[in-house]
């Protein structure tokens, strides 16, 4: 993410959460936060508890997001009576941005959206009666390949609950259409043939097949490292155990709290945790989308080709 992407992300969040933007430049934005954003970002649970219990009029924070510290307006000189406004520098990797990421992940977990029916079709709607909308479940999976290192990727899948077709790059397909949270007038949702649970099973099966076919050299390499490490530890503790036996014949006693076998088990567990390769799959978020017309041959696809 470069500075411009960060800015765009923050601005869209502020807009989506209903904040009022007071002053804006490419380097900064001064914002009166909405109650929703204030609760999420300013870390004032007691204040919000108070507001909610007493029903008082909430006073949200006005703050400045700084995207480019060099070009943003300088903070007012500190002194008595000087206005104090919190400033947050948002850059990739900064704490504020990761907080925004978390907030967005929480809020954007599940959606249900309907496609807006374009105006030009309206005449036809009147002629044909209410328009049926399809149902598509979109799930964004995060796949993590973990050993002592880690790589992950995001897979965005969609399944049409009527036809059962599975499509990749669902997010890109969604992008081409206009969505609204309300069911448009003169439209209804056609009852899907597949149940949601069934559809999700299908998606998971699809993923599993794909993962089985994927390149797993990384796992083999990690496994080799695991073997190597295990062999070394085995040899070492075998030797240590011999020593211990020899020593017991002598007068020196091993301390009971930290004998070799216990250490060995611990070390083995550590190695397992460190090197054993595995793949974690997690759904990031999911949504039910009701498109008008066939989703698979959506506008975005035509645009791409």
């Amino acid at each position: 993410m470069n500075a411009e992407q960060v800015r765009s992300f923050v601005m869209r969040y502020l807009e989506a959460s209903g904040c009022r933007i007071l002053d804006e430049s490419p380097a900064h934005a001064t914002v009166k936060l909405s109650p929703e954003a204030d609760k999420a970002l300013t870390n004032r649970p007691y204040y919000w508890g108070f507001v909610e219990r007493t029903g008082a009029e909430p006073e949200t924070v006005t703050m400045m997001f700084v995207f480019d510290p060099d070009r943003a307006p300088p903070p007012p000189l500190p002194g008595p009576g000087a206005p104090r406004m919190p400033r947050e520098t948002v850059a990739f990797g900064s704490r504020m941005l990761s907080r925004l990421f978390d907030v967005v992940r929480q809020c954007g977990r599940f959606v249900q959206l309907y496609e807006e029916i374009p105006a030009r079709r309206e005449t036809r709607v009147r002629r044909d009666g209410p328009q049926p909308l399809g149902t598509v479940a979109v799930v964004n999976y995060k796949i993590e390949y973990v050993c002592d290192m880690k790589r992950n990727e995001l897979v965005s899948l969609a399944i049409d609950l009527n036809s059962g077709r599975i499509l990749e790059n669902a997010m890109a397909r969604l992008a081409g259409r206009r969505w609204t949270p309300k069911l448009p007038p003169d439209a209804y949702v056609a009852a899907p043939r597949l149940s949601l649970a069934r559809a999700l099973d299908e998606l998971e099966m699809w993923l599993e097949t794909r993962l089985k076919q994927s390149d797993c050299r990384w796992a083999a390499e990690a496994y080799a490292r695991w073997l190597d490490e295990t062999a070394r530890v085995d040899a070492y503790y075998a030797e240590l155990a011999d020593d211990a036996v020899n020593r017991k014949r002598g007068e020196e006693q091993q301390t009971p709290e930290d004998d070799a076998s216990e250490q060995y088990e611990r070390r083995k567990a550590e190695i397992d945790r460190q090197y054993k390769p595995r793949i974690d799959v997690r759904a990031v978020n999911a949504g039910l989308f009701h498109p008008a017309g066939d989703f698979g041959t959506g506008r975005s696809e035509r645009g791409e080709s």
Partner: protein
Amino acid sequence: MFRLAVEAETASLVPSFDTMLCLSRLSGFSPMPHQIETARKVLFEMRGRAVLADEVGLGKTIEAGLVLKEYLIRGLVRKALILVPASLVLQWVRELNQKFDIPAVAHKKEYMWTGCDILVASLDTAKRAPHRDIVLGIDYDMLIVDEAHKLKNDRSANYRFVNRIRKKYCLLLTATPVQNDLSELYNLITVVKPGQLGAQDRFRETFMLDRRVPKNEERLRGEIAKVMIRNRRGDGDIEFTRRIVRNVRLELSVDERRLYDGVTDFVRNRYREAKSSGSSGSMLPLLVLQREVCSSRDAVFLTLVRMFAKTPQDSPVRQDILSLVELIRLVQANTKAEKTAELLRECGDKAVVFTEYRATQEYLLQFLKERGIAAVPYRGGMNRGKKDWMTDLFRNRAQVMVATEAGGEGINLQFCNHIINFDLPWNPMRVEQRIGRVHRVGQTRDVYIFNLTTAGTIEEHILTLLHEKINLFERVIGGLDAILERLESKTPWEANLFRLAMEAESDDELRAGLDRLGKAFRDAERLVKSERALSTGGVRLAARSGENQS
């Protein structure tokens, strides 16, 4: 929101196994090339278990921070424990917070062991009950131990404790992996990777000729290089700017000369008396006095007053002291201070003035203030916050910092490149520490060092020893601490010097004595160097094999 969530997730993706992501997420500071290289090696070759054994001042903390940050970004580490000496806890927390944006906290309350994910605690606290059992009950993703030479003895409580902590990744940080004995190194490495060097007895058989002398060196280096990284100041890839030394020789004014001679005579007489009566307890104030007279009359005065209070009522010494105080009263100006002001005006840049004595410091601050030069004090007794504040003031407002303390942690003054040694410590270590405050990683300009000495005093001889015989100022002596340790096996270095100065009947005799000391120093240096070749050779080898692979 739905789309934003996906975007957020995409931005935090880890696209491949072997790139360093942390670099693009650091704002406000950029690590040095050797630090990045070290972090890369730890991550991708040593698989997160390593001994970082860079020399002092090369940024082990930063390397460890980079590694930790990378694992955090990749989500491979959630729970991390950082064990450091108590005095460094806050410094670590600050570095991690400010430089890396890592939400580390200092350990204060018991619930924090489980409640906080990234915790900085002192090793001594952690190993004690009741903390000990809590710590041992937690599966840590990462463990970092600073000043890890405290684990060198495998029978110590420290060693056993750290060895028992359950950890996935483990970094040990130390500037001195080998102090006396090769098995110290063995023990460190065994904490990180048990079995890397085989069992202890086997290690002794295969690799050790003697406590200090290794055998099968080539193989040992190879093994060590798999788990240890040691960057040295002398290594080519770490660029240091030059040190430019100017010795400023000053003539004492008549009054100052009289005071100097008076004090020197006084000290010599006391020294002889003390020696003949066999009491060595009163030596220290004498040593201090002799050194102070080269600094300022204020410093001498304070010590004399203290001495006066201690001597019995009827002692003839009291009269001597009083007459010295008379001499002090006659001294009106301080030649060195005048020169300092002149130097400061000439260079017109930020400068640190170092002195050994509080009284001199006070005097200098007053003196500079009268001449309209903005100066801030810095001393060991200040608390952390005040030290930071003074450093900030120096950076932003004042031209001069007058410091009494150079050792200890925490003042990094890379933004300044002039040092004025108002008086000289006799101990080379302290001199090196002073210069090291300014001449360190991150200094972009050549460093100017001014040594003020007064002609015909003991100070002049000390300067000759430190500068010409040891060549302390112009180059960085690796392993100075080890050299001194070796030299000081019998008597401390400073006491040695003092005896020389007191017992020499003539200047020539003194000079010969100093020659001997200088030679002893160089001998010790040679010895230490050959020892160090072992551990550093390992690093070079690692670097070479790294190149072959890539």
